[in-house]
């Protein structure tokens, strides 16, 4: 009666804690851990798609999320920047990932380095506006994201109508994404310890074709 559904789900609560979505008490979390696996997943997806578009005849769909050139900031740098200035709940980044997936599913669009930034700033902003009680307005997010307010307003409207305003995320979906991120985070950890042992160099030299993949995971 009257308790949060979360409190009964100790299993997923641990995952939430480990991703920095929930604080265990007084501890002030600076950069929630979730940002790192999220960036890795998105970077890998972008690389896979760009490879696919290069090697096949699939035609890239150009939308208003598509920039003329790829912004100089990496996905990780961009996400860190949004996190630093938006002050939104860390959960908004998980929700934003869910929104981006919903958008891609509703369109023929592939995530590439030309559209990932605009999709990210729009979806994190929407997650904050929908989920959080305190959030910044579009003009502020436009500055954080490096686009004009008018453009961000257009992106917001387009995004909302494309996903048919489906912003609610149920606990099941949220938990599923969290465990994927958690798994990814564990992979990043292993990669780091391999690097720390000095094995990484030999390993990546002997497996050249995988080196790009390894780099994004380790970042």
């Amino acid at each position, binding site marked *: *009666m*009257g*308790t*949060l*559904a*979360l409190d009964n789900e100790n299993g997923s609560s641990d995952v*939430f804690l480990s991703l920095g*979505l*929930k604080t265990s008490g007084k501890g002030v979390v600076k950069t929630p851990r979730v940002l790192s696996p999220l960036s890795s997943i998105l970077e890998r997806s972008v690389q896979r798609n760009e490879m696919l578009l290069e090697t096949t005849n699939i035609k890239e769909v150009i939308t208003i999320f598509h920039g003329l050139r790829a912004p100089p900031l990496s996905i990780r740098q961009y996400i860190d920047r949004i996190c630093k200035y938006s002050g*939104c*709940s860390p*959960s908004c980044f*998980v*929700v934003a990932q869910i929104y981006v997936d919903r958008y891609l599913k509703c369109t023929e669009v592939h995530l590439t380095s030309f559209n990932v930034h605009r999709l990210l700033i729009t979806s994190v*902003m*929407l997650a904050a*506006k*929908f*989920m*959080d*009680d*305190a*959030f910044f*307005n*579009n*003009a502020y997010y436009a500055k954080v994201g490096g686009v004009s*307010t*008018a453009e*961000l*307003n257009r992106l*917001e*409207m387009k995004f*909302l*109508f494309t996903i*048919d*305003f*489906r*912003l*609610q*995320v*149920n*606990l099941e979906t*949220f938990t599923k994404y969290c465990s994927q991120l958690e798994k990814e985070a564990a992979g990043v950890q292993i990669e780091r310890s391999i690097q720390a042992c000095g094995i990484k160099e030999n390993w990546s030299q002997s497996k050249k074709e995988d080196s790009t993949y390894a780099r994004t995971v380790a970042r």
Partner: protein
Amino acid sequence: MEKYEKLEKVGEGTYGKVYKAKDKATGQLVALKKTRLEMDEEGVPPTALREVSLLQMLSQSLYIVRLLCVEHVDSKEGKPVLYLVFEYLDTDLKKFIDSHRKGPNPGPMPPSLVQSFMYQLCKGVAHCHSHGVLHRDLKPQNLLLDKERGILKIADLGLGRAFTVPLKSYTHEIVTLWYRAPEVLLGSAHYSTGVDMWSVGCIFAEMARRQALFPGDSEFQQLLHIFRLLGTPSDKQWPGVSSLRDWHVYPQWEPQNLARAVPALEPEGVDLLAKMLKYDPAERISAKAALDHPYFDSLDKSQF
């Protein structure tokens, strides 16, 4: 928007004007909520954004107002306008209660109608909660009525919020004062479905009394209204109350007999009301459990 013929302005919503209109093709009456987007800085107003996405999901319930569609058009001046198109209902519970208090034929609401409205309200709230949504602004004005068919529907989800995923602390600027739960008034960092159930209790009492149960005019007065009827809460009955952010030392009142505050209500009704107005949110009855309360035993549930 040529599809609709505007008939009259029926009110100001949280984010714009509301019109009664007619769908020219079908003759169906609709309510048009107009959202101006000229506030460039803000983009789509968060209240509109929440209302649309929550209703997309909740509208299949008979006890939640139906959102028919969302239209994005450019006004004559070239400014973007968003229209939310709702089914039209002729009145709301506030106007209905008022008409029983001071209309041409004042008199109590029939007990069977109070019972039926309460059941529908609990159905609607249970539906919201089972989808992980807190309404956070339940009050008679936001409960629309179809008088002919005796149907009640929950509207205005602009303050709604998901409560399933972990989020930063919650705002206390929710719920119209008279229907605001004590944990919100006392500044609790987290709250949940209990805030809606407190509002449901206040609405229940208001139907039976034909006037508000706790008509405070400030947050402090609001608490005193509550304490005077239900007694000043203690840590014994509500663990942790004295460590809430806005707790002060209050006069010590003894709980009054709740039945005397709602003389028109039968004993089973008073019992349900008492369970909705429990101080400790963890002890407050849930909407789903309320549906099974003996108060509703005499109700013909087959119609719902």
